[in-house]
């Protein structure tokens, strides 16, 4: 990507979810943002974030507003970060299709994800995770897991860049980044900065 891209805003898929928290994180880093609810709003962006929220709702809305094709095209040429539900939307496929309730991931990140992998809200938790292989973000990171998904398979082109114990919680494939937790809910901006470095 040319140097000019660094002046472009980061897009936030804002059909539903905590996109405003990502907006605050990028603002704190001095980076402009733009809400994306329609295909034309993907023009002229530096990259895109698919936030946390409900993946069933996001699936319905992506298809109703005709964003599925445009999002796939965009991801072929730009960095995209998905957090929690955003990772589910980026995934290749879902474990336990019967319980997927019509969630249709975009099929971009070669991995299999299990929704609500830890249980319901009473099973949500905070834990330190170890990031390695993401320039500028390496080290221990305070992660918030809310009705979080679990990554149960990663393909050969996928690099695990974050672990909770032995379990992958952050993965990268080229300029696609998927996290099972919510960096936007903490004050620690290292992962947002690392994402901007991909852009």
């Amino acid at each position, binding site marked *: 990507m040319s140097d000019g891209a660094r002046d472009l805003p980061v897009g936030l898929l804002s059909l*539903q*979810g*905590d996109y405003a928290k990502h907006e605050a994180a990028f603002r704190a880093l001095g980076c402009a943002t733009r809400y994306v609810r329609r295909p034309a709003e993907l023009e002229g962006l530096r990259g895109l974030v698919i936030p946390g*929220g409900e993946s069933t709702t996001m699936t319905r809305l992506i298809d109703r507003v005709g964003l599925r094709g445009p999002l796939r095209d965009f991801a072929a040429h730009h960095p995209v970060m998905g957090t929690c539900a955003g990772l589910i939307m980026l995934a290749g496929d879902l474990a336990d299709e019967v319980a997927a309730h019509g969630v249709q991931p975009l099929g971009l990140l070669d991995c299999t994800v299990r*929704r609500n992998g830890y249980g319901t*809200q009473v099973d*949500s938790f905070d834990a330190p995770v170890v990031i390695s292989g993401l320039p500028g973000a390496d080290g221990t990171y305070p992660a918030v897991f809310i009705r979080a998904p679990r990554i149960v398979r990663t393909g050969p082109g996928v690099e695990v860049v974050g672990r909770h114990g032995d379990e992958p919680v952050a993965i990268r494939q080229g300029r696609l980044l998927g996290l099972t937790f*919510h960096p936007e*809910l903490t004050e620690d901006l290292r992962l947002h900065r690392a994402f901007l470095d991909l852009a």
Partner: protein
Amino acid sequence: MQTFWTDPRLDAEFGRKVGLAEMLKGGVIMDVTNAEQAVIAQEAGAVAVMALERIPSEIRKTGGIARMSQPAMIRDIQKAVSIPVMAKVRIGHFVEAQILEALGVDFIDESEVLTPADNVNHVIKHPFKVPFVCGCRNLGEALRRISEGAAMIRTKGEAGSGDVVEAVRHMREVLGDIARLAEFVGDSEALQREADEMRAPYDLVAWVAQNGKLPVPNFAAGGIATPADAAMMRQLGAETVFVGSGIFASDDPGPRAKAIVQAAVFFDDPKKLLEVSMDLGEPMRGRAVNEMAEGEKMAGRGW
């Protein structure tokens, strides 16, 4: 993450509770009374469902004591959908809340729609792992609930009426109170006076004055029946809407549910709102709040 409470462990717990409320933003939370309705709601794009035995308009009609729903019915709904499942407890009924927590619901609504179990106290919500949402009519009521541990605030509106007038009033009250506090930033005497008048903790009042918003998500509920109602509440400042009787007391719930979901997303786009408002069939008939006797209103419950 917010930091208000002196115990840092409470802060982490509260952060996760508010975190789930953040994930629901921009969406629609729908009242459902069985698994079949829950599936319709999820299919329409609801971000969560509220499981209850009778929708508020039915509670109005049939009367009697309205209590927490049967756990078996809530469990059926939990099995049928993968979006968060909420359920209601009576105001002050901490044991109904303990039971719902044991059942693993994702959110508890301590709700004026049910018959209050305590005429003085609300549930102290901090000790629970499960987050709570509570209704309010003004900022003082919102901050009293937050100080008890509520992780989400909604307007009370007038549930089961199909009349949006009270939700509008309550949202304007809350936002008006917040705007008014701005002039007292840094004036601790004035803020203390406001806190006393609102019967709310000083620290929360000072935080709101400083930040110009509630420290937890601010949603709308009570009387929302059409896509236009949902979009109006969003334009007024609500971050998400609850739709109770408005969907399953209408002619054709599926399409209406879908339309309200889109109206919540494209709340600021009149052309889109026109498009989704077409061919929806009849909304719920409803009852005008201005024609109700005081004793019929649910919004007055809560302290």
